[in-house]
């Protein structure tokens, strides 16, 4: 069993296409508020976990670190995250970049979705735009997206 064997299984998975790719010119990084959006199904133990096929999102807060990896796929290594949440959710690294003035600030709120979805219409039409609206309301300028 190797990582490349597992990755090879995804070779035939179709990816969605966007006829027109949106492009937003970023504000200056040193003035930008940055948020993380992950598809690792992270959630706080006090929040509802992700069910298989869950197309919703959960809000992650910057001041917490006890997030559960709620992804239902067996096809990734979980021990890296267990040892260091920054392996998937690099919140400490962003805090350090903000302290050094490299990024403007770190958003208090971040988002988590469940990756490994094959039916994406609900995310494209509903929970994706809703999550984007939520982060816009937090005055987020730049979004870093991380998978598992």
């Amino acid at each position: 069993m190797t990582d490349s064997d597992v990755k090879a299984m995804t070779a035939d998975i179709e990816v969605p296409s966007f006829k027109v790719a949106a492009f937003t010119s970023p504000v200056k990084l040193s003035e930008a508020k940055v948020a993380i959006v992950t598809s690792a199904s992270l959630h706080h133990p006090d929040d509802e976990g992700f069910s298989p096929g869950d197309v919703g999102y959960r809000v992650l807060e910057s001041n917490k670190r006890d997030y559960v990896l709620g992804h239902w796929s067996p096809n990734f290594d979980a021990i890296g995250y267990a040892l260091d949440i920054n392996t998937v959710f690099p919140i400490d690294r962003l805090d350090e970049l903000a302290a050094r003035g490299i990024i403007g600030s770190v958003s208090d709120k971040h988002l988590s979705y469940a990756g490994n979805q094959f039916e994406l219409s609900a995310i494209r039409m509903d929970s994706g735009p809703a999550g984007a609206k939520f982060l816009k309301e937090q005055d987020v300028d730049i979004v870093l997206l991380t998978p598992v």
Partner: protein
Amino acid sequence: MSTLAHIFEAAGMATIALGSVKDQIKNAAPPRGLWCDFPLGRPLGIPQNAEFQHRVLAEAFSLLDSKQTVFKEYDIAIRDEGTEVMACALPPRHDPKAHPAVDEANGLRPAYERALAKYGNRIGAGRTIPSEQISEAIESFIRVAEGTPWKEAGVPGIPARVSQDIRGYYETAALALSDHAPEAWAGTRWFLDHTEAGKVVLSARQAMADAGEKQPIWFYMVPGDR
């Protein structure tokens, strides 16, 4: 992930998407995509290595300098050779009357509890069955491996999800039995190839496949390349 990048970008935020599978991120074409050839589950590369993670982030943020959509390959790859296995001491036999896998799972409980206390339940074990029922779940898979149809074997949930909890219990316990950050998949290989419970899960999966059970019921009990 890349789908969300398109959506968030359209809402007026600049995005940078990290991707671990080249074809996926390249074909989905997020506005700014950085393919990092790192093992699945480790998009920032190396746990407990802030310097490495910062280097990845610096490369990611550098994509913001582009005036148009951009795809880039990170210049360092982390390849899993499929050889490293976590070196975790397994408990000695305690109850000779118990199946070796059940005895083993019970013997690992102190390690599981220590890991929970130190790291929390980050792996997410216990989503289908509480950890107190791990032994019963293993016993049900033993019956499946011996030929009992899974619906009659007392499997306490969808087999793939129950298996996920057994693996999570073992990999959580492994955190307390190792003193370094292992390479990716080393914990999974330890569980599947070096523990009695892993053998039971694989045997039960094979038995279900041989019995003609629906593929989604058993296939996802372990990583799909097994």
